[in-house]
């Protein structure tokens, strides 16, 4: 595989814990690879399973969903529901040829800037090691959803 292969990562971060954790990583200047693009959502439970598939379909090599630690959900129960949803989706994706290692669901609290940066680094390393993901036949030409 090419040395300069850079995995593409989408991150869905809940506004109250994980997005804040990412901010914390920033304020404490904890560097991590620039491969991740963070999409801000109110709660990990907001993330429809299909978003994940869409990301892969759009060419992502890995997707990271992150929310508050179990029990700390700002909406009290969201991450519990997310956990079930994504446990199933992970299996389904793997079944479709997207290895489990490409779809991480991890909890990061608002104070865990360090954890966030280490997590993203670890994920990026893992994906670099794995190389480009299996595609389902031809890559789609991605039209711009922006034309609303």
């Amino acid at each position: 595989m090419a040395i300069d292969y850079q995995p593409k990562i989408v991150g869905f971060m809940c506004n109250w814990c994980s997005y804040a954790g990412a901010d914390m990583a920033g304020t404490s200047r904890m560097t991590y690879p620039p491969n991740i693009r963070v999409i801000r959502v109110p709660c990990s439970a907001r993330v429809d399973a299909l978003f994940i598939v869409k990301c892969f379909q759009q060419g992502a090599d890995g997707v990271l969903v992150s929310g508050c630690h179990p029990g700390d959900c700002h909406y009290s129960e969201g991450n519990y529901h997310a956990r079930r949803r994504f446990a199933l989706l992970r299996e389904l994706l793997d079944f479709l040829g997207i290895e489990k290692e490409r779809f991480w669901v991890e909890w990061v609290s608002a104070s865990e800037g360090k954890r966030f940066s280490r997590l993203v680094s670890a994920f990026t390393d893992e994906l670099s090691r794995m190389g480009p993901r299996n595609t389902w036949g031809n890559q789609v030409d991605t039209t711009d959803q922006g034309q609303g």
Partner: protein
Amino acid sequence: MIQQIKDKAKELLDSGAVSCVIGYERASDGLTARPLFVYETEDVEKLIFDETCTHNLVKYLLNIKDKPTAIVVKPCDARALNVLLGEKQHQREKVNIIGEACPGVVETSWNKKGDDLEARCQVCTQHTPPIYDFLVGEPIEEPSPPSTFSDVADFEGKSAAERASFWAEQFERCIRCYACRNVCPGCYCTECQVEQVNPEWVSIRLTPEENLMWHVMRAFHLAGRCIGCKECERVCPVNIPLSLLNRKLQQEVLALFDFQAGIDEDTPAPLATFKKDEKLGIGEWHE
């Protein structure tokens, strides 16, 4: 046995308890079965039930929600009905369920009737409907459950790359006729997400990836709801092994949440509930 159905249907129609009885009649090939809607008592005689009655009639019930209706169901169909009752799609009191104790149905196609039981019946562990108002035939002794997910296990034997290319090939063929959806008792949205343009989840481009998007959507929307009637696969004009996706999820739902769809109408669906202390292999990364 058939007489039992006829008598019951007659009784229900005459008494005015129901306005329609949904059942099976002999198809015009004289060999297979097709759905029958009985409104008039004289049509009762057309009713049949045998190993050719493969269709899941529950789907039709969705079109006659308001009027009291009787329906002939096999155990698997009854499970679908349970799911729909749980999802408030029917009022129990408006549905009169004629349950069939069912030893299994055989492979059929136009003018053809196989000798072997359909694959789903070979692994079936429920031969008496979990719900009914009137049971036709004697309750059938349940056989000890065989390992029902060998097909899934076999497929998981393949490498990820093989799995991906397998589905790529399959979905290459998909023409998005949506027969799989239209036949599925679990699919009843007023406007299916796949056809929504705003947002456009799936483009109409017939690429394997877009098709896959659709099939994942279908499978996942049925997660914890699919009762494994395999109608989707039966009706697929290009023979995509669709139920494999459903069965994978069925297996996981059973393994992770110890849940089977349609066993009763009260147990909350696995994605509608949770356990605080379950781990599910999620959130286990440590530095």
